[in-house]
Structures are given as C-alpha cells and as structure tokens.
C-alpha cells in the first residue's frame, strides 16, 4: 500500500468537503445550525439557565406513617429543576398528564416505605428486602421529559437509599429509569450526547453521494485505471470520513459547550468521546457504501441513504427515549444507540471509562462498525468495482 496515494485521495476528499457548498452545509453547517437551534430552544447560552419540569406525585404509600414517601416527595420538591404537584388520586394526575399540564407522574406504591425500611434494616441482605416497583408515567410527546426526568427521580431515590451510582441492587425499581447524576443539569445536558452521534449519521448520505457521483462522472473508472489498489482507495475514504467526523464532533462540542454543556469529566472522557465518534464514523462509511451499491444514481442515493439515516437517528440518538418500548428495543440493533449510551454514561452518569457499560458499548460499536464496513465493501465490490 502506497501512503502517497492514500494521502492524495484523502486530501482530494477533504477538498471536496470544503469546496462543494452542499457537502459543506450537510457535514459542517447543518450540525452547527442544528445544535444552535436545538440548544437555544432547550438551554439557552452560557449554561446558567436550567430547565424546570412539572411533575405529579401520587402518594399511595401505606407503610407505617408514610414517612419515606413524605421524605421522597420533599426531596423531589427540593430539586430546583422540578416543580412538584401532589395529587391525591392517580386519575386526576393522569388527566393532567394527558392534557400536557405536567410532564410526568410518579406513583408512590403502597409498599414504598416498607421497602425502604427493609433496606435500611438489612442493607446487605437483599433477600430480606421488600421489593417494590415505582411506576413512572412520562409525556411521550416531550422529548426532554423522557430524557431528563427518569434520571432525576432515580437520583433522589438513590440518595434516600444512600446508594452511589455504581450500586446495582435496590429494593425499589423505577420503571424506565437510569442512573444519572442530574444536579443543576439543563435540558441541553441530556440532549448533548445524542447530538455528537446525530451529526455523524449524515456521513451516510455524503458517502453514498460521493461514490455514486464518482461512478456517474467516470471518476471511479479513472481511479480504477490508475495503479491505485482497492485497499488504498478504501483506506483513503475511511480516513477522510473519520477526519470529517472528528471535525464535526469538535464543532458540535464547541457549540454545545458555548451553549452551556459543561460536564464535570476529565480529559480522558473527552478523548474517549472523540474516539468513539471516530469508530462510529466507520459504520457510516459502510452504510454509505451499501447505499451506493443499491442506488443507480446519486439522486437515488440521497433518498435511499435515509433507509439507514432515519433508524440510526430515531432509534439510536436522543430521540429514541421518546419512542415506544418496541422502538427502544429496536434501537439496540443500531450502532448509534450504543454510541449515545456510552456518551451519556460518561458525560452524565460519570461512569468510569473502564466500567462494564462503557466497555460493552465500545465493543459493540467497534465490532458492528467493522462488520458494516466489511459488508459495504463486499457489496460495492460485487456490484461496482472499486
């Protein structure tokens, strides 16, 4: 493999990105505009603004003097990010939720206090706990609510049980909840990890268009006539789009940072995030190649690329949490889900880079990305020689 050829083709691809207005917009300006518009509508600038969520609490606790459910309600009320409305019956709360007056309803079950009491009595003996499930109803139409509210409830519950973030066993299970640190978090904080993933997904369209255009105008033929090997050509494409993904991630990060996304994590976490986005971009090159294999023209490639863009977008980024349970399960079959999950874990949950969740996410992303790229190369080579 001649590095000279790879570098020349890489440089050519980067020049295209800079000089073609449509490409420039889709790859760089679109994510910036998107982050700006989305971020401004959610968190504003400077990071000083925090969102406030209207939540309803229905207390059905029968245990003892309902001491723990009162503590829980008070703790929720003390969260500046929440405005708590206490309901005496679930029906009224659900009615308000359906009318959009509140964004979530939490139902404190009858065994709530008993459950916490049992935990406090024997914190190291799960078999002696009174297990209970706390149902949480969310406004499905509120993207932010589905992302932000469950972690807040989970944090308050964890605080009552004196649990840290890494504790996995608890007598109280919150439906749809995840362990997230939410102190003074803005809505943007919950959306930002998905934005990193979001921006890179549109590389699929760019790759598909690039390959089909080069095929249409004879450039692919010209490259094939030269001594450039398929390996050199593909290496240049992967390097180019990884570079573009890196620039995208930097721009998105700069934009979100300027708008107030400042997670309390160290440099290694940021390095990890960028590496993960780079690895993820490989799958987008693969999906782009698959699209180019199917598409007969560049205009067809644009449309067909959405077959891969939309599932990645809706099932794997921040949009996913507002979808149905089935759709969320389906999200586990797209690489973007694991990228967003890992970034969320690192930035919001403060999960260590060596934690099981992060390693599993990284492994899934890496393996799937290589597999998708391989499938893309094989398909493209089968139908159109590289």
């Amino acid at each position, binding site marked *: 493999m*001649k590095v*000279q*050829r790879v*570098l*020349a*083709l890489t*440089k*050519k691809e980067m*020049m*295209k990105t800079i*000089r*073609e207005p449509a490409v420039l917009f889709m790859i760089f300006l679109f994510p910036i505009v998107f982050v700006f518009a989305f971020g401004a509508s959610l968190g504003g600038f400077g990071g000083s603004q925090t969102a406030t969520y209207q939540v309803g609490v229905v207390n059905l606790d029968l245990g003892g003097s309902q001491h723990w459910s009162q503590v829980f309600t008070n703790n929720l009320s003390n969260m500046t990010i929440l405005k708590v409305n206490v309901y005496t019956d679930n029906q009224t709360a659900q009615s308000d939720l359906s009318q959009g007056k509140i964004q979530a309803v939490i139902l404190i079950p009858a065994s709530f206090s008993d459950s916490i009491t049992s935990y406090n009595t024997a914190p190291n003996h799960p078999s002696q706990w009174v297990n209970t499930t706390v149902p949480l109803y969310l406004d499905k139409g509120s993207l932010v609510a589905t992302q932000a509210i469950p972690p807040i409830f989970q944090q308050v519950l964890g605080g009552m049980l004196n649990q840290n973030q890494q504790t996995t066993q608890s007598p109280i299970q919150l439906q749809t909840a995840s362990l997230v640190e939410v102190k003074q978090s803005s809505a943007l904080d919950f959306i930002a990890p998905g934005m990193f993933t979001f921006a890179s997904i549109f590389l699929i369209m760019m790759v598909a268009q690039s390959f089909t255009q080069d095929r249409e*105008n*004879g*450039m692919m*033929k*010209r*490259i*094939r*006539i*030269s*001594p*450039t*090997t398929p390996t050199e050509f593909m290496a240049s494409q992967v390097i180019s789009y990884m570079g573009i993904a890196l620039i995208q991630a930097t721009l998105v990060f700069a934009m979100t940072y300027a708008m107030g996304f400042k997670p309390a994590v160290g440099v290694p976490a940021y390095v990890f995030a960028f590496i993960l986005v780079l690895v993820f971009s490989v799958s987008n090159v693969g999906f782009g190649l698959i699209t180019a294999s199917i598409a007969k023209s560049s205009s067809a490639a644009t449309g067909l690329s959405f077959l891969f863009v939309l599932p990645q977008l809706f099932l794997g980024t921040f949009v996913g949490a507002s979808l149905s349970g089935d759709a969320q399960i389906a999200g586990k079959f797209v690489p973007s889900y694991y990228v967003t999950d890992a970034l969320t874990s690192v930035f919001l949950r403060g999960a260590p880079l060596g934690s099981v969740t992060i390693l599993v996410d990284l492994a899934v992303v890496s393996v799937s990305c290589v597999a998708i790229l391989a499938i893309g190369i094989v398909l493209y080579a089968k139908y159109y*020689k590289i």
Partner: protein
Amino acid sequence: MEESAIIIENLTKKFEDKTAVEDLSLQVSKGELFGLLGPNGAGKTTAINILCGLIKPTSGTAKIYGYDVQKDAQKVKELIGVCIQETAIYPYLTGVENLALFGNLYAMNKKTIKERSNMLLTKMGLTEDAKRITAKYSGGMKRRLSLALALIHDPQIAFLDEPTVAMDPQSRHAVWDFIKEQKTKGKTIILTTHYMEEAEELCDRIGIIDHGKLIALGTPKELIAKNQVKNLEEVFIQLTGRNMREEL
C-alpha cells in the same frame, strides 16, 4: 514479435446474450499510432476496457508489453494512460490539482509532477486557467484536461477514446499536434474516433470493428485503395453500412 506493444489473441467478450467483442486478434507495434474505428456500439470501448483491465474477457488473451492484462493488471496500469470517453475530472479541484492528484496516484515525485503538469497545461492551452476550479471550465477545456490527466505519468501506451469530442477546431488541431509529438517520442497510441479526417491525419494503421469483429485492417491508404473510394469516411460507410446506429 518482441516489437509488439500490444498483442490481442482471440479476444471475446459477451454480455449475457450480446457479444460485444468477437474473436478479436490484433498486434500493435511499439511507437505505432493505431486507430480503432467503428460505429456506435461496435465494441471499440469494450475492447479498450479489456486492455485497461477494467473488464474481464470471456475468452482470449491480451498482453501489453508482454504483461497479461488480467494476470499482471497492476504492472499494465503503470504502463498505460487512458483518456476515457467520459470527461472525467474532479469539478471541485483546479486543473493543476487534478493533475497533481493523478501524479500522486502514479507515485510520481513532486518535482516531476510539477514539470509534467506545467508541460501538459501549456500543450493543452490551459496554463491561464490552471488554478481555476474545473467546474467552471468549458466542455472543450475539460476534454483537454482529461487528456492531460491520462498522460501525466508519461505512459508508454496511451488509449485515447474519442479525445477530441466537443472540441473546437483550434483545440482539436492542438491536440492532434500533441498526439503526433507523443508518437515522435516513441509512445504507442490507440485512438478511437468518429472523425475520419482525424484518423486519416494521425493513424499509421487503422482497424475497423463492427458487431465486435475486426472487419478491416491496414494503413489509411491501403484501405482507401482496397475499397476503391476517395477517403476513409467512404471506406467506413462502405464497410459498416449507411444505416444510423445510434442507440436511443
């Protein structure tokens, strides 16, 4: 035999039920300017694509400088330069950037790329526009740059597939002069064209191909004399028929 730059033996290419090239055998000497003529769809481009290693023949062999175009494809690619039928240039690069890119693909050093680029841009009359984005070039300028790209690495053999299409007379004559100059340097050139006067002016020998078969071979004078006509165009029409064959 050793002086042959290209040896084609019993070359056949079938696309499903259509035979594009049928049992083609041909030798082209080193330094020869060989014209491959034929109506649209006759099989000229298919034959050239096989020689360039772009498509595999159904049967038969083709060798360039002794290298089999299939088995030694990499070596063959280093020896040949191809001006393809499409005006294939990167529209978002300047003329000089396009040349530099392909110079790098042929692993040329910077100095040689610069020298060759300057020479080719001058010969093609593109010096003033060398640093303009090629998307803004006229059709003729694009064709001339396309020819320059094919020759950036100073190949031993050049395949020029209709190189003067869409050029004005001045540009066409400039390209003819350049092609003649390449011949004087000992380069082997395979030229396909629809301009009979171009073939008559430039080619040492001409092969006329129709329905995938080589139906005539000889110098322009030999073909004219043999068919008892006034010029090559009449030879062409006499041998390939008068019916229009443009595929809609």
